[in-house]
């Protein structure tokens, strides 16, 4: 009996740690979706870019981890800003599908460019917390996962206060609710939208730099986008608290499924959840209900 509860507790901790990453990625996607109504399929590739740039800065140039993290976050934020200002903005007003296609195209280009620059082999880089773990009442957890959890919570809190109490944050909220009204009130909607992209880039950079040491620095890092989409749908599409709750839940469900369900279920359970939620409750756990306007 005790053994059973120990397993459950261990799985819960692992699930929350994995879920924190999903939540962070989902948060970036939902920020961009709320502001510009573009579902960013290239978000995973921003993770790839930040992982590879951190690898280059740490192992090739020999910079300390913190400096590399700062440079990567700034660089990816700038990149995402430019992506919106130069490319994505041009398709405003076209059907939603055009946005999906454009971000998929950009994802292909980024992925191709990264593998042209760095080559196909996967690699790794050291962090201050690699190879360490904390023991707590018979449970063990890698320090890196604790850091990921901490950083995710910190980013979420900072974003919360940013949206609540700063002029730019309020402007972003206004622009995402009604662009025309925001514009008439003096919000520079285009620039604000690009800044939201930069903000999405920041979350992607944090997620990428912290996730890569666990999974290896590799092109296939972008697959986390798909898990994040499941998290978004479960939490309610377009809701920021929903993204976080959904991410954590998907992480937990995956861990439990890996132990208590048949072999191979762990890889697909997130997608099963996605389909089930969309059939049974399309607005997710925390999303607003969808009215249909003709």
């Amino acid at each position, binding site marked *: 009996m005790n053994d059973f509860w120990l397993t459950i507790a261990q799985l819960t901790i692992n699930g929350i740690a994995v879920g924190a990453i999903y939540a962070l990625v989902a948060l970036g996607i939902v920020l961009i979706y709320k502001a510009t*109504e573009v579902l960013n399929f290239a978000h995973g590739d921003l993770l790839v870019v930040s992982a590879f740039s951190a690898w280059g800065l740490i192992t090739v140039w020999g910079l300390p981890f913190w400096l590399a993290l700062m440079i990567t976050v700034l660089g990816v934020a700038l990149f995402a800003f430019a992506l919106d200002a130069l490319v994505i903005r041009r398709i*405003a007003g076209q059907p939603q599908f055009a946005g999906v296609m454009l971000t998929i*195209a950009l994802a292909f280009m980024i992925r191709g460019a990264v593998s042209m620059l760095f080559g196909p082999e996967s690699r790794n880089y050291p962090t201050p917390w690699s190879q360490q773990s904390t023991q707590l009442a018979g449970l063990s957890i890698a320090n890196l996962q604790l850091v990921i959890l901490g950083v995710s919570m910190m980013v979420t809190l900072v974003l919360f206060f940013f949206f609540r109490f700063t002029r730019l944050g309020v402007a972003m909220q206004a622009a995402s609710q009604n662009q025309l009204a925001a514009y008439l009130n003096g919000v520079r909607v285009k620039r604000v939208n690009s800044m939201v992209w930069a903000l999405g880039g920041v979350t992607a950079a944090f997620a990428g730099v912290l996730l890569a040491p666990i999974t290896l620095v590799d092109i296939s890092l972008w697959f986390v986008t798909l898990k994040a989409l499941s998290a978004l749908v479960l939490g309610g599409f377009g809701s920021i608290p929903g993204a976080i709750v959904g991410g954590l839940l998907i992480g937990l469900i995956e861990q439990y499924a890996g132990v208590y369900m048949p072999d191979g279920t762990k890889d697909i359970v997130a*997608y099963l959840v996605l*389909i089930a939620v*969309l059939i049974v409750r399309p607005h997710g756990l925390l999303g607003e209900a969808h009215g249909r306007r003709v």
Partner: protein
Amino acid sequence: MRFDYHTQYREGFALWRSPFDRNLYALLLLGLCTLPWFMTPFMLGETAYVFILCVASLGLMSLTGLTGQVSLGHAAFIAIGAYGHAWFLSKGVPLPLSMVMAAMLSAAAGLLVGIPAIRVSGLYLAMVTLAFAIIVEQIIGHWSSVTGGFTGLAVNDPVFLGLSLSGPKAFYFFCLFTLVLVLVALLNILRSGMGRALIGVRESEAAAYALGIPVERMKAGAFALSAGITGLAGSMLAHHLKYLTPDGFTLLLSLELVLMVVIGGLGSLRGAVLGAVLISSLPTAISRIKPFLPDSVAKQFGLETFIFGLVLALFVLFEPMGLNGRWLKIRSFLESFPIYRKDTFKRNKRYMKSERYR
């Protein structure tokens, strides 16, 4: 200069716009029929592969282009068609029947996805189909008693009435025949009430509903039709590959199909074919120009991915109507030669319209 001057109601939806068009297509078909005598067996096999992709792309076009339902997971239907066909063949089902059964199996799977499609639309549908494709890929990998799992499944040679179709020429004609069959069938569906209902659903669900079109049934039916055609393409692909493994039917194949449809031009069968031809000849073209590039670029691994993305991005940004739109512009330029106006196809300025509350 040519005018569409209809004197009878039926001319409005005739199969050919004019006898000239009909003769042109007949000439094209004749040319394709004589092609095998001018090509190496390798090129012939590649052309047959292009035909197979054309069928798959037509399948996706009948869903995304005609009915307006997005699918990012059509590789799943190709996989179901291919594996179903291989399994039926191994049980001794004759070739044509096995292909039809594989297409039906795929159509049934399409119906399965089509039922949630009634409730969700747009981005949500894209995600449902994406998730479905990943699930199917995993199931194929793990269900080894039927699919051979990750070790793969060998496909029996195609034999029709005691005649082997596995030679390059025979297989070429087999694929060409199926492509023409699917194309003519779709053209006729488009002229029928059902085709117009599908287009009505694409243009406005509410308006279609008000006109008495059973929108839900049309959506599910479009999914079944599209999945059936794509499954048919899968059954031919099984013969092209000769050996099926799950990594032949990944997300990349789904995205390539979407690429074909978008680059070809949403909403037109001609576009589906043009897009499939362009996308499937792109890798060959890239490997042809590689010798002229500097070594540092040509040797790289991601060049193909990058160029695929670039082509798609350029089309989305500068020619949203795709290759078909470009073709229409060229044609109208030629048809109205001295007096073509540059602004005929000018894109209207459009404003951001929220889709959030739909």
